[in-house]
């Protein structure tokens, strides 16, 4: 087994895999049908050749980014839990029974910018699943007692995550790097807010009323299905859903005016962790900067980068290092995470990571490395797209950000145009000292200290 598989899965360290496509081939190669209902609900249907199964992904454009009121961090995720508590025409038990008969794998997830409800099941059960899903989006029902019980499950989720130092490192990074914007808290939320959730029943009703509306929602159906059938069922069950009128005012994060740092003292034995982050642009399917940094991530910090090969393979000072640069609605962080084998090497590793960021503000990446990265991305896509569910899952982020699979094609078209000079220019713009946040975590000792810059 891969020794680091657990931590890798936790970090998920996706090198924002991006792709180079030849101009004649679109990044998203499937034929799809996109239809808007008069109430603002959008349906995207992608028939595939994978037989028998259908995947339904319902994307709601709300997430922890929308948690703008003080004391309400973690609410989008908590609300995702409430959506499983039953609706007017389908109790939670009836819902479970239907999904069981459908042989379904059913779940949901919440991130900063989206909440996604997903099921994969036998195609003959599509009608019933659509009816049931429509009911919970339009007629959710739960009692104050059920609400409190679910708050206990969320608390349990925080607790199960809390054994990992990485959760705390990530939480501290967010809180240090952002002061105004809601990205300051993780999707899980601050523990004090989680502990207060049982007292916020009324707010949960407001949250539903604001965001669980057709204009915030897109249904993606992939697999053994026709667009006509998908549309017929969508009209039948979702056509009368009423539009809402709420738009959140997400606070803008002011420019950072000095490097920041934080340190977490960890109570139990651990290897030290470090996160070196720079403010980076949000998602764009028009501008070049984010695309350029996406391509730089694997080149500078991926498995065959010089830094990885030096720190992991040759010097063996870290057992894990990886970049993370998400596609987010608003400007996010470009972060490199590492776990260091010997506490005395923390400063050394920090300096090596920072020096690598700096290096690409002056050097251009070799053209052949850029080309190899594009090839990598192209094949990553081919390899990952191995089921109807994988196709729907891949579309969900683009649906959340731009509400169409075309966003994927547009971003990939930008990747095609990126030059080594574009990458250097983006690095110069974002990898400045004032944009930097460094967070370290280590076992608490008498000599624990703040990380320097």
């Amino acid at each position, binding site marked *: 087994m891969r020794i680091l598989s*657990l931590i890798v899965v936790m970090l998920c360290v996706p090198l924002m895999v991006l792709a180079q496509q030849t101009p004649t081939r679109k990044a998203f190669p499937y034929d799809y049908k996109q239809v808007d209902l008069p109430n603002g609900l959008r349906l995207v249907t992608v028939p595939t050749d994978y037989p*028998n199964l259908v995947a339904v992904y319902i994307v709601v454009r709300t997430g922890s980014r929308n948690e703008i009121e003080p004391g309400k961090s973690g609410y989008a995720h908590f609300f995702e839990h409430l959506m499983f508590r039953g609706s007017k025409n389908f109790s939670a038990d009836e819902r479970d029974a239907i999904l069981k008969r459908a*042989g379904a794998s059913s779940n949901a997830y919440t991130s900063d910018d989206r909440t996604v409800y997903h099921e994969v099941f036998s195609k003959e059960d599509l009608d019933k699943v659509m009816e049931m899903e429509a009911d919970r989006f339009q007629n959710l029902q739960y009692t104050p007692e059920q609400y409190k019980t679910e708050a206990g499950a969320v608390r*349990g989720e925080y*607790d199960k995550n809390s054994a990992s130092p990485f959760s705390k490192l990530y939480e501290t990074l967010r809180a240090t790097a952002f002061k105004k914007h809601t990205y300051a808290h993780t999707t899980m939320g601050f523990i004090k807010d989680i502990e207060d959730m049982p007292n916020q029943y009324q707010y949960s009703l407001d949250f539903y009323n604001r965001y669980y509306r057709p204009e915030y929602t897109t249904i993606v159906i992939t697999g053994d299905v026709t667009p006509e059938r998908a549309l017929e069922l969508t009209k039948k069950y979702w056509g009368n859903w009423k539009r809402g009128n709420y738009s959140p005012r997400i606070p803008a994060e002011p420019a950072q005016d000095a490097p920041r740092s934080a340190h977490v003292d960890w109570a139990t034995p651990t290897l030290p962790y470090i996160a070196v982050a720079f403010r980076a642009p949000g998602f764009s399917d028009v501008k070049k900067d984010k695309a350029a940094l996406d391509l730089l991530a694997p080149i500078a910090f991926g498995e065959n980068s010089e830094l990885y090969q030096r720190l992991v*393979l040759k010097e063996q000072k870290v057992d894990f290092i990886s970049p993370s640069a*998400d596609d987010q609605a608003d400007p996010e962080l470009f972060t490199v995470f590492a776990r260091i084998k010997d506490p005395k090497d923390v400063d050394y590793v920090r300096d090596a990571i920072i020096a690598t960021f700096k290096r690409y503000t002056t050097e251009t990446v070799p053209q052949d490395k850029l080309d190899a990265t594009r090839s990598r991305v192209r094949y990553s896509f081919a390899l990952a797209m191995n*089921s109807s569910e994988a196709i729907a899952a891949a579309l969900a982020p683009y649906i959340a950000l731009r509400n169409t699979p075309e966003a994927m094609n547009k971003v990939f078209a930008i990747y095609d145009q990126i030059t080594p000079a574009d990458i250097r220019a983006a690095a110069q713009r974002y990898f400045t000292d004032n944009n930097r946040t460094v967070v370290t975590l280590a076992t608490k000792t008498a000599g624990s200290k703040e990380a320097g810059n």
Partner: protein
Amino acid sequence: MRRFLSTTLATLVIAQTMFAATTTDNNSSAKTQGREPSHMNSVLLPNRSPLVSFRLLFMTGAASDPKGKEGVAALTASMLAQGGTRTMTYEQILNAFYPMAVSFNSQVDKEMTVFSGTTHVENLTRYYELISQMLLDPGFREDDFKRLKSDAINFLKVSLREANDEELGKEYLYNIIYNNHPYAHHNVGTLSSLERLTLDDVRDFYKRNYTQSNLVIGLAGGYPSSFQPQIMADFAKLPLGEASKTKFAAPKVDEGMRVEIIKRDTRSTAVSLGFPLSVNRAHKDWPALAVVASYFGQHRSSNSYLYQRIREARGLNYGNYSYIEYFPRGMFQFEPDPNLGRQQQIFQIWIRPVTPENGHFVLRAALYEHDKLVRNGMSKEDFEATREFLTKYVNILTATQGAQLGYALDSRYYGIADFNTYMRDQLSKLTLDDVNRAIRQHLKADRMRIVMITKDAEALREALVGGKPSPIVYPPNANKPKEITDEDKIIEAYKINVKADDVVVVPVERVFQ
């Protein structure tokens, strides 16, 4: 539920995008299995996919670790999959993998070691050249050995022992059930043996175990017809060897209940419990028990009895599940990895962490529910619904080409038909009586082993031994229905049948030592 994705997690999904333009055919019709003249076995699933998946399975694993060399099987596999060859350093291999976006992974279990990877057919020649060299002409370099041995030690010492109470509890449960059995140690080894392992130990393990007779070549996808003979010829370079025929006996577990409480400074209390199970996938009662495990605790699903009683009705934690097969890394994935075939299995209940004040209660709840299951069996309605679920759910388990190949290799190991056919046939013949007989026969818990992980281990031990009622602690004004509060009263006083000697506190530093 309902998965919480942090931002970083979310982007994994983004990375799962695609490019493959053409049709893929998962209905591979030309499935063949055969024994080749070269003594190697193969499982082949040719189809028209643009992808080619490899699963190269060696019938060896951690149960073949020589005494005192625990961990050598896993370290050998790591050296092959994450180390250089005689002619290429690992850096050079990573550089060659990079433009193809491929990887080569190893998974070591007790009796199986599998190497897997998938490539686009356009890169098949280059990819195969690299991975075949990695397996057939390993470099066994000192610097790779130092790195991978250190990774193995840190995995046990830090990642598992100090950062993941749930996986720690599950793995330690296996350790104590299989005490003094070849399955006893963690697949990665023990800390003391890993410290002593040398590169010569790895070379020796490779020589003895990586043989033609132990190899089953698994291949799926759109590879050319000339490819399979080529692989067979290449892997004939391995020594012939003799096929591993070790029979692993059932573990010797004393009757009665035993509890080990791992003392660790942690926020919550994790619980895992189970007992040896004499049924594996080859046994006639396996489909019946698969129905029971799904009904009682389908992995990561709200569609399960335990989940409903402990999480949905009481809000005690994030989830509660049951298993009849080893399922590592369950907190990170919805479907199990294939190629974890074992002669011996355990029945396991996984209770996700609760607040320490409810630790005693939740253990009682798990035992109470398990006892009810054994006494009452399943109802006709639950049996039929679960059977229907599993009949369809097998399509999800085998939705990808790689999973189909993995399950096909496992079916070969257990001597059953291809998994989907096997499940559909067996489930259609199954009756409620079969299931309830299997429950009574195999799931009675007269040898239950329990692992708990908590900060105040001594107090928990005292409470378990003392046996006083342990009322559930709800948040204020929980207003639970009478049906639940009445049952809470029964559970809080439910007898856990242990004496002082049956409950021990284990400092976390001693685990995996």
